[in-house]
């Protein structure tokens, strides 16, 4: 099939449109500015809505409105902007509205820098805003996967009526790679709960406010059961060169791709390393990682942060003395040689 050259931002935007997304609202922030630019042309072309909002806060609330009206809706931003969206994401989760949020992660905290980072792992996988909720979080490692996972995100969001976060970074946002495009969605799911005007039915309401004692607790348990279902059904991961490995590297996104190169070089030097790559960061593929970890004595976790997925690896593997960490926070991107050095060191 014919491939086209796209940046990560363009691939995600195109994937969204082909998945039936008809509403995008965003606000400029580096390194994802190509996203709203691309959408500003493509959305009207495909019959959808593009709005450059006055803030990230407003953008996510526009997405809330579009989702409430039954549209497949999305926004994109980068770390500081994603912080601003957390209020809206919490409301989406509380109101059980589907939406897709793309985070092209940059260095933080605060204004940080504009270089690639994985520092928003906790924010994405632990809920991020206020309240007891989870967001499905998918982490691609190539532009093709940015495209594929954006497409998938809309299906998961609708299936579970829950926000889905695509967690990429500044590298994947701007990198150009060939992408094979899927055909556009033909049939989108019916949404009986949506606000479309009450013609021929009882009025619908969308809310996360439950003042009667006990009702919110019941609602939260209902959400918890949903998160449990997601946890059981939607874990995605990949393993590479694990059949004969002596040690395991665990890494996600851009960092996993660099780690894979380090492993390839290690193999040339007869160091038998394998790679475990979580693609769904929440739900985290704990059981699969635990099984894989049983094959080796030592595990190296590599991330572009100070050690966040590390916590999930520790929870999955349980034996902390076998787990080693190499991290580059603040927009630092490791070279394969750096990771190779760590592989040799442990």
């Amino acid at each position, binding site marked *: 099939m014919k491939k086209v050259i796209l940046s990560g931002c363009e691939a995600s935007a195109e994937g969204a449109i082909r998945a039936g997304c008809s509403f995008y609202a965003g606000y400029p922030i580096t390194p994802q500015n190509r996203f709203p630019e691309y959408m500003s042309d493509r959305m009207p072309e495909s019959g959808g809505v593009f709005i450059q909002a006055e803030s990230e806060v*407003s953008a996510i*609330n526009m997405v809330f409105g*579009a989702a409430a*009206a039954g549209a497949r809706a999305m926004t994109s931003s980068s770390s500081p902007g994603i912080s601003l969206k957390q209020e809206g994401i919490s409301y989406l989760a509380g109101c059980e509205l589907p939406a897709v949020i793309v985070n092209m992660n940059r260095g933080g905290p605060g204004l940080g820098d504009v270089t690639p980072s994985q520092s928003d792992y906790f924010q994405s996988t632990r809920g991020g805003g206020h309240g007891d909720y989870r967001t499905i979080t998918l982490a691609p490692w190539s532009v093709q996967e940015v495209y594929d996972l954006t497409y998938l995100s809309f299906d998961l969001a609708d299936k579970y009526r829950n926000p889905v976060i695509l967690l990429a970074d500044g590298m994947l946002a701007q990198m150009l790679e060939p992408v094979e495009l899927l055909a556009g969605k033909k049939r989108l799911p019916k949404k009986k709960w949506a606000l479309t*005007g*009450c013609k021929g039915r009882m*009025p619908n*309401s969308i809310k996360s406010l439950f003042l009667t004692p006990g009702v919110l607790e019941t609602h939260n348990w209902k959400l918890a059961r949903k998160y449990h279902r997601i946890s059981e059904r939607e874990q995605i991961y990949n393993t590479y060169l694990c059949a004969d490995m002596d040690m395991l590297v665990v890494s996600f996104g851009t960092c996993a791709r660099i780690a894979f190169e380090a492993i390839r070089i290690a193999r040339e030097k007869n160091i038998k390393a394998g790679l475990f790559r979580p693609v769904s960061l929440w739900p985290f593929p704990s059981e699969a990682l635990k099984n894989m970890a049983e094959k080796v004595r030592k595990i190296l976790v590599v991330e572009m942060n100070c050690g966040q997925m590390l916590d999930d690896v520790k929870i999955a593997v349980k034996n902390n003395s076998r787990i080693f960490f190499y991290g580059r926070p603040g927009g630092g991107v490791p070279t394969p040689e750096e990771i190779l050095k760590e592989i040799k060191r442990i």
Partner: protein
Amino acid sequence: MKKNVEYLYKKPESLTDETTIYCAGCGHGIIHRIMAEVIDELGIREKTIGIAPVGCAVLAYDYFNFDVTEAAHGRPPAVATGIKRSLPDRIVFTYQGDGDLAAIGTAEIIHAAARGENITVIFVNNGTYGMTKGQMAPTTLPGQRTTTTTKGRNTAVHGFPIRVCELLSTIDGTVYLERTKIDSVPDVIKTKRAIKKAFTYQMENKGFSLVEVLSNCPTNWKMPPSQSFEWIRTKMAEFFPPGVYKDAGAGK
């Protein structure tokens, strides 16, 4: 039951049977009712989508008999934008208080107006945060006592109130802006007329309308309802003069 009965006065279909949480003498009930009457009269109940604010009117989805969503504090104009742009042939309104619209949601209302969103905004200005028990609002009058201005609003310390209709009238994206009050029957009728015009303009795709209603909060103003209406008439209307601030819709 008698056949062919013609009702002169009955509960609008656009209101549910739910008992409201509003305090005795509160203006929200009056405003809900005239909105419901307007929506019935225009025959748009089945294609209306409302956005409830955070504040006393947060439970509006229980009182209105059509589709309603909640919104985060101050965000109804953004939520309305998302709904209206997705379903352009539906009638979309926000119902917002002064804290919601003129404090935490100032950016949202100004930019929805600037984009000329084809929505209707019902802005209830009662000069206080009612739900949280009476703190200073962006529209609290100079000298007015609240729980965060116990000696009265001192403009040197607490700043000045915001006149929303005047502010929005400078924005090209707005079509219709009127300030009314509900302290007397003629004024309630005038308010209903303004609300009807705002919805009619939306039906005619004319653009952004806002009706600011000077309302009361007897509980937090700590005065009987009758006195609270007197306060609207004498104090509020003096600082926030009622009137049409913009009407670019006529003949458009």
